[in-house]
């Protein structure tokens, strides 16, 4: 039954893939705001994952990621916003849901999901920055070995209580790692936006440039502060990585 249901989604995902390719040129060589994006589609989620969701009581029709598309790029948070907006505009006239999991992370998972309803079915488009994707892939990898339950806020599997406790500590530190990564992304984004504004101001000519001199000076000061913030958040991220490794070591998590 699930296999047949997945088949019904096929035309929906095909429409979405075509729209992204033809309207936004998201292909292997496509650029969005100067960022190289990589996309892939999942024509059908694994049955095991679907069964997990059904066991949690989610009705099949409400599961939005039965089929989906993932876009990954080394972009800043504001570029991620812009991309999500551009994608939503591709489906004007249709219902388009948006789920910003950067603000409300799902047990550490951060991304922006845009979900157009096409040919009667929702198709989840996951938009991840490089940092968000690396964290998510690590979380999924942990799920392979320790069970997927931590992704739903439940304790990990393990042969003994001590081992389950150790894994729970590890996962807790891994989620904290995601928070530190996001702090760093926020700092990088702030610096990126200020640098863009500075470029705009420097590009002004004559009188306009003179009028903007106060803002230009202020922007330069803010850029210095933003650069210091980037260094600070980077240091916190590195410290958290050391904590993570010291809790159990990457070796034991495979």
């Amino acid at each position, binding site marked *: 039954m699930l296999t047949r249901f997945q088949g019904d989604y096929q035309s929906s995902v095909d429409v979405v893939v075509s729209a992204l390719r033809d309207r936004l040129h998201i292909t292997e060589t496509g650029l969005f705001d100067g960022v190289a994006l990589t996309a892939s*589609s999942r024509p059908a989620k694994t049955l095991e994952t679907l069964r997990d969701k059904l066991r949690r009581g989610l009705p099949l029709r409400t599961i939005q990621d039965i089929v989906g598309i993932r876009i990954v790029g080394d972009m800043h948070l504001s570029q991620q916003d812009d991309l999500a907006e551009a994608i939503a505009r591709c489906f004007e006239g249709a219902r388009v849901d948006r789920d910003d999991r950067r603000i409300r992370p799902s047990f550490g998972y951060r991304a922006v999901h845009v979900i157009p309803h096409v040919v009667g079915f929702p198709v989840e488009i996951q938009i991840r920055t490089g940092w968000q994707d690396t964290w998510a892939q690590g979380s999924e990898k942990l799920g392979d070995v320790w069970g997927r339950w931590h992704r739903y806020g439940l304790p990990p599997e393990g042969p003994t209580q001590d081992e389950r406790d150790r894994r729970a500590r590890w996962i807790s530190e891994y989620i904290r790692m995601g928070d530190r990564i996001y702090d760093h992304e926020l700092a990088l984004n702030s610096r990126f936006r200020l640098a863009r504004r500075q470029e705009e101001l420097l590009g002004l000519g004559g009188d306009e440039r003179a009028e903007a001199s106060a803002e230009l000076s202020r922007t330069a000061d803010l850029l210095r502060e933003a650069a210091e913030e980037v260094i600070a958040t980077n240091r916190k991220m590195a410290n958290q990585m050391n904590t993570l490794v010291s809790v159990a070591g990457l070796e034991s998590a495979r």
Partner: protein
Amino acid sequence: MKFFLLVYDKRAGKLREEREYPASEKARAFDERRDLMLQHRLDPNVEVALLGAESRDSLIRTHSRYFKTLQELARGA
């Protein structure tokens, strides 16, 4: 767009099998996915995934979990 059929051993964290299909053979990719799912249905450690991408490199970028160890993922961060 090509299709990639992966048979992934979760416990070992490694791919057991990988097949590639051109867009024109999408139906065959789906048929073979169904056969592999039936073949491995009793093994909870095996995941059969069918994914579409422009190239294998694209797939490694968006689904690195299937191709890299946790240490390799951490090194890439």
